[in-house]
Structures are given as structure tokens and as C-alpha cells.
């Protein structure tokens, strides 16, 4: 296939598929912890990091990484102090990130094409260094989630039970926030700041429709996410449209298809029950 012959496509696919694995992996916990908007909040902070980093002469991704991790730590600290209004703290960080990004972008002379590539993703211009960085970050996320899987799942179910069992919930929550920040920065390169949260949430939402167990939901979310990246990237190449938006729209399309299938199954089951009960009446 002509598509696979280009080096930039091979790099984009590799980086996209790694992102497609780690985003729903972290997203599976984010959804059950009812923190679905954290990716958006951190995305805005990442944007401030990109513009701020450029302003002080740092590589924008490094700037984004530093500020996003700092933001994630801040969000977690606020969440601990204000458990009843945890989303309020997230909103403040969200706005602070957006405000800083606006201020930094007016203070710096970063070219608008550079800004746009971070906002909307730049999968076509992914370099080999980017692929290595994404693979390294992805491996780190995979290893940590593997070793903390049970504890993360238990804490998502009930943090008090984990606490009584002597699990250091504070440390694990902080580590999870930092991992989320890492995934946001990794995803930012591929689908862009505005859409990175979608790749963390939408495939997980689609997998939830299958009504299977926790591990199976996570597995299906990764499959849906990788499918979205592959189909989205291929379509964007042939249709000559933005890859980030195409990937996310593919993920949303999969969600819609799965919802329709789910509704059809539910309708069939209800119909079957009605027929069986009518036979019973006779």
C-alpha cells in the first residue's frame, strides 16, 4: 500500500498507536474516578507550558511537561483539601492554564503555525525523536499501571477501604496525577491539546457499552482507541483533512455505532420477553 511507504506515515502510525494504548489505559481509571474533565484541564495547562517554554527558550514539549506535571500536582493537592468541591479546583486550574497560555502567547513571538500544531496536533510532522520520547513515556506509563493496577482499581472503587488496608493512597493518587499529565503531553503531540482528553475518554465510554468487567473494558477501550487512530490516520491521508480531528471523530463514530447496536440488542431482548410473557398469559 502506498500509505505505508512514507517514513512520516510509519512514524505517525507508531506514535499514534502508542498514544492509542496509553490514553484509554489512564482514561479507564479517570472515568471511574469521575474525573473525566481532568484531561481538558491539564491540556490547557500544557498549552501554557508550550507558550511559556517557547518564551524562556525551552523546547515547547519540555515546557509543557514541566507545567502540566506541576498543574497535576496542584489539582491533586486541591482535591485532597476540598473533597466535596474537587471539580471546582479543577476548573480554577483549567482557567489559569488558559489565561496563562493567552498571556504567554501574546508576550512571545511563537509562529502561529507552531501554536496551531500544538492545539490541533501534528501527527504528520512527528520526528524520530518524538517517537522515541513517546515510546519511552508510554512504556513508563504501562509499567507503573501494571504494578499498581489492583491498588488503582481498589482506590477507584473506594479509597477508604484501601486506606484501612494500609495502602499509601496519597502517594498513589499523586503518582496517578503525574501519569495523567504525562499522557496528556504525549497525546498532545498526536491529536493536539484541544482533543487529547477525547482519546482518554471516548474509547472508554464505547467500551463501557459492552458491559463487561473492568479488565475487559480496559482491553476493549485500547482496541477502540487503536482502531480510531488507524482509521483516522488513514482517512486523513486519503481525504487530506486534519488527522487529530479525524482520529477523534472516528472514536466518536465508533461510540455512536456501539450505542445503536446496544439499543438494538436491548430492543430485541425486550421484544423476546414480551413474546414469552404473552405465551405465558395464553
Amino acid at each position, binding site marked *: 500500500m502506498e500509505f505505508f511507504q512514507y517514513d512520516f506515515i510509519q512514524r505517525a502510525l507508531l506514535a499514534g498507536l502508542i498514544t492509542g494504548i496509553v490514553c484509554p489505559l489512564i482514561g479507564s481509571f479517570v472515568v*471511574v474516578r469521575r474525573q473525566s474533565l481532568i484531561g481538558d484541564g491539564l491540556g490547557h495547562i500544557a498549552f501554557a507550558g508550550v507558550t511559556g517554554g517557547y518564551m524562556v527558550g525551552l523546547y515547547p514539549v519540555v515546557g509543557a511537561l514541566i507545567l502540566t506535571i506541576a498543574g497535576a500536582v496542584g489539582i491533586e493537592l486541591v482535591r485532597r483539601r476540598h473533597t466535596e468541591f474537587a471539580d471546582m479546583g479543577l476548573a480554577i486550574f483549567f482557567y489559569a492554564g488558559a489565561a496563562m497560555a493567552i498571556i504567554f502567547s501574546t508576550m512571545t513571538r511563537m509562529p502561529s503555525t507552531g501554536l496551531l500544531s500544538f492545539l490541533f496536533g501534528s501527527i504528520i510532522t512527528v520526528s524520530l525523536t518524538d517517537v522515541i520520547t513517546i515510546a519511552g513515556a508510554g512504556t513508563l506509563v504501562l509499567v507503573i499501571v501494571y504494578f499498581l493496577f*489492583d*491498588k488503582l*482499581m*481498589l482506590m*477507584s*472503587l*473506594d479509597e*477508604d*477501604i*484501601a*486506606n*484501612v*488496608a*494500609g*495502602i499509601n493512597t496519597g502517594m498513589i493518587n499523586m503518582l496517578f496525577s503525574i501519569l495523567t499529565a504525562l499522557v496528556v503531553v504525549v497525546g498532545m503531540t498526536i491529536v493536539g491539546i484541544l482533543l487529547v482528553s477525547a482519546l482518554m475518554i471516548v474509547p472508554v465510554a464505547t467500551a*463501557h457499552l459492552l*458491559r*463487561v*468487567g*473492568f*479488565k475487559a*473494558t480496559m482491553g476493549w477501550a485500547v482496541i477502540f482507541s487503536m482502531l480510531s487512530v488507524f482509521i483516522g490516520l488513514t482517512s486523513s491521508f486519503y481525504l487530506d483533512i486534519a488527522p487529530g480531528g479525524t482520529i477523534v471523530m472516528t472514536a466518536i463514530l465508533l461510540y455512536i455505532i456501539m450505542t445503536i447496536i446496544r439499543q438494538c440488542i436491548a430492543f430485541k431482548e425486550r421484544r423476546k420477553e414480551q413474546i414469552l410473557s404473552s405465551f405465558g398469559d395464553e
Partner: protein
Amino acid sequence: MCEVKLSDIHFSYNTNVAIDNISLTISQGDFVAVVGPNGAGKSTMLKIIAGLIKPTRGQVQIGGKDIFTAKGHGLIGYVPQNYGKNAQGFPATVKEVVALGLTLGAVAAKKNHQAANHITNHMMELVGVEQLRDRRIGELSGGQQQRVMVAMALAANPQLLLLDEPTSGIDYEASARIYELLGTLNKNLGITIVMVSHDIEKAVSWANKVACINRKLCFFGSSKEFDDTHAQARHLWYYTGQ
């Protein structure tokens, strides 16, 4: 031995006193029902025993060790109040949730896949949820969810089981089955149980000891003694703490 000893426990939120100088000793194998009116500090006391809240004054010892040292050795199983709220929509199956209990206790059992599977199956059978093993916990009734949570706590092989209102929001029959299950666990496995309950009659009939609190300890003794006490005096303890 899993003796629970509370010495001069005092706890206050800002200036509001929630627990006032409570001292009591729960022996190994006791089934204690903690009763009292709304806002009496029952759940606060249970959280202090569980080590979730640090008392303003006083000390909690489990098996002779300070609670903050005893925590994390799989000694204590905790079933929180309003668990169902967390379970709504949670995508884990019953088997996955019960297996999570192994994370709380012996690491050796968790590492051995066969042993882990055996313990998980046994716990599901023990509480009567083995037929629901592949159902998602969020799809179960309140009573069934509560049984799953008890099975999860038991998978860690605890010596002390702490339950906060295990029958709240559950219908009469389901709550009777939960009390029966706790009674069996206490009698057959010798697990010490401390249970906060609003259902005073039912709780007292299954427990062998009663702690009646209204910020301070109003009564601590056998359930028979509590039952034999004049109804009016009980009413006074319960509602006024005098």
C-alpha cells in the same frame, strides 16, 4: 489475638465535639453493635477504630499495637457506609471485586494464581454470590452489593471486620440475610465484628455486645443486659445519652 482497645478517645470537628472520652475494650470474637441516635458519632467512632480519622486525644490499639502500626497487615476488613453510591456504573464484575480483597491481605495468596482463584471462589460461596460472579457490581441490588463487599473484606482473611450501616437502604429480607451472614462469620470463623447500625432491634439480637453512644459512651455491655434493661432507660440512653 485481635483485642480492640479504645482509651480516652476524644474527637472534635473545629469546636463541635463528636466523641467525648470513650474508653472500651472489645475482646477477640466479640460481635459488637454500635447504636445511638443520628449525629451521635457512631460512624466517626468506627472510622477512628479503622484508623481513617486520628482522634484529637486518646489512643486506639488493635491486638496491643497502635492502630496506625496495625493498619496494612490485613488484620482489619472495612465495609463503608453508602457503598452503593460508589458502585453505580463501576464496570468491575463481582469476581473482580472480591479478588481485589487479596490486594488488602496476604501478598503470597495473590501471587499464586490458583490459590487466589480458590480464595475468591470460596469467599463468593461463603456470602452466597457465586451465581452473580460475572455480573457487574453496579447492576446488583443494595443487599447483593453489600454481600460482595463483605466477601471482598473476607478475602484478606481479617481478624476484625468493621461495618458502617451495612443494612442501610436495604429491604427487610436482604438485611436479615446480611445479619445472618455476619452472625455465621462471627460464630464459625471467630471474626471479631464491630457494626454500626440504626436497626437497633435486629442488631442487638445478633450481636453479643452493645455499645450505645451519644458522643459519649452511654452503655457498653452484653446484648442480654441491654435487652433486659428497662425500655424507658434504654430510650433515655438512646436519645439523650444520660
